[in-house]
């Protein structure tokens, strides 16, 4: 791992910075209560936290998909490469290089896998040849998709859809990808593969990543930096390595206690839950 030098190279200018944002759904449901963090250029930052902590909401406020769910950023600002992006349309953002892979796949069910991938390249005006190259690259990452290229996405398996969603985002040739739970529903070796792809894109093509991930173990292994979100607030942040060694994180996010991983069968009581803030 060469985490150290990527971080060093990037720390100069904030690339994506989220400053103290507050998000309200439906005018009444306050979900984010002042979240701030930064993603350096070429960095991989993990956003961790329990269900409902607000990870997806954070990502959606960056990519401006929030409005489609009647959510609003009521306070704070979001800057990408020094420019405020909170008022931009998702289309403009994608053109600037920020794309989100939404939680829960969201493939276009009636389109074939290949058509799904092609929609990803919508914002790029490129020749047929380049398009084909991009496709081939995605197929190279996900050979499974190639075999299913002409099936309607709606009829493919959960994992295939997940690959399709990620592949679709790659087709936009983004500079920064917001990945929401990429590992969900994927077989273990594919999870590894996907993170390897992340790593690959990061180191070879300098794509930055912000990932919301429940699979803390893997996430911290690949990320440079991590933020832990609880109840709409950032409660802890640090270099991925430090976080991975933090006792609390170990216990609650990695399931490791003093003597290593406990068997799931052995966890006897579940009426304990420590929260930094609640």
């Amino acid at each position, binding site marked *: 791992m060469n985490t150290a030098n990527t971080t060093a190279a990037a720390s100069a200018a904030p690339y994506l910075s989220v400053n103290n944002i507050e998000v*309200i759904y*439906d*005018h*009444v449901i*306050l979900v984010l209560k002042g979240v701030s963090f930064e993603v350096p250029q070429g960095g991989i930052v993990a956003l961790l936290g329990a269900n409902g902590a607000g990870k997806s909401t954070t990502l959606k406020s960056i990519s401006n998909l929030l409005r489609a769910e009647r959510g609003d950023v009521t306070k704070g600002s979001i800057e990408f490469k020094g420019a405020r992006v909170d008022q931009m349309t998702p289309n403009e953002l994608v053109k600037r290089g920020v794309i989100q892979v939404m939680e829960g796949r969201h493939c276009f069910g009636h389109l074939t896998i290949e058509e799904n991938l092609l929609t990803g390249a919508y914002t790029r005006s490129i020749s047929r040849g380049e398009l084909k190259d991009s496709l081939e690259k995605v197929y190279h990452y996900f050979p499974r998709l190639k075999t299913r290229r002409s099936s309607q996405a709606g009829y493919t398996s959960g994992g295939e859809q997940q690959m399709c969603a990620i592949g679709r985002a790659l087709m936009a040739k983004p500079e920064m990808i917001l990945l929401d739970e990429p590992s969900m529903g994927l077989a273990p070796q594919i999870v590894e593969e996907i993170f390897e792809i992340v790593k690959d894109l990061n180191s070879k093509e300098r794509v930055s990543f912000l990932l919301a991930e429940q699979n803390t173990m893997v996430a911290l292994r690949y990320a440079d930096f991590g933020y832990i979100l609880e109840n709409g607030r950032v409660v802890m942040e640090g270099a991925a390595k430090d976080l991975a060694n933090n006792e609390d994180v170990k216990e609650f996010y990695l399931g490791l206690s003093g003597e290593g991983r406990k068997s799931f069968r052995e966890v006897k009581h579940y009426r304990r839950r420590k929260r930094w803030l609640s």
Partner: protein
Amino acid sequence: MLYREAGQFKASYQEDAQIFPIRQDRIGFIALMAFFFLVVPMVADQYWLQAILIPTLIFSLAALGLNILTGYAGQLSLGSAAFMAVGAFATYNFMLRVDGIPFIVAVVLGGLCAAVVGILFGLPSLRIKGFYLAVATLAAQFFIVWALVKFPWFSNYSSSGVISAQEVNILGYAFVTPEAKYLLTLVIVTVMALIAKNMVRSTTGRKWMAVRDMDVAAEVIGIRLMRTKLQAFAVSSFYCGVAGALYAYTYLGTVEPEGFNLDLSFRILFMIIIGGVGSIMGSFLGAAFIVLLPIFLNVVLHSAVGAALPPGFGSSLELMIFGALIIFFLIVEPHGMARLWQIAKEKLRLWPFPH
């Protein structure tokens, strides 16, 4: 700080399952009922009773019927007016052909006829979904109106296909004054609204909603799709049928089959969408909105500033504003006025704090 549920504890599940679990709501509801039952008949004039309140109530009932089908059971229908027509014409024929039949019995039988027809036209819903089904229900709309015009038996061979409602007489009391008709309508509508509320808060309603929200999952849980959908069609058509009977008997007095045209079906659909899909109260709010708004606009545009506008322009403007307001409402709250009301209550609950 007036609207709080703090301090109101529910000691039993029965209490928790009440229609209005919060005390303030209960009081409000009782006050509202008292207002409509006691105050309105005393203060409202004939115009309000006959031209506004009675039709609003009747349309609310029809909207309620459609809401059961569309809002709760998720089956889009564009044939409500036709089911109203069945109710009206069937009631008329029961009154006509069965000597001494009590009015209420005729209405119920009329509603049942509508239910049967509803089931018949609901059969395709087993295979057809969404907008496809909506267009299929148009078949009901056109077919029923056509049949009522075509077969003179239904209108007792009246040359123009029009039926003229008999006098409403219950236990020797003739309902002729607007006040009496209003109260009769109000009683029927209130009772049926309560029944509807009961249905939707019990297993019946939950089954409907399950089918609406995700029919595959519903089936996996063991819900019989066919039975549930047809039941919704039947109940919904029953409601529409009764509304149709009231439309003929307590509102217009004489009705023609073409009065129950597609336009009316759409109007009822607007009511539930504007009012709130899947909400009992929404049916009432929506009906009031759709009945009152055009009248309001008409009064404003014709009586108030009418003289200043070229003729015809006022009417066009009315239409434009009406359309624009519908869109405006949807943008403000896509889930209808009932949801707006709910959000208002939620805010009130938090008041004076914003969140």
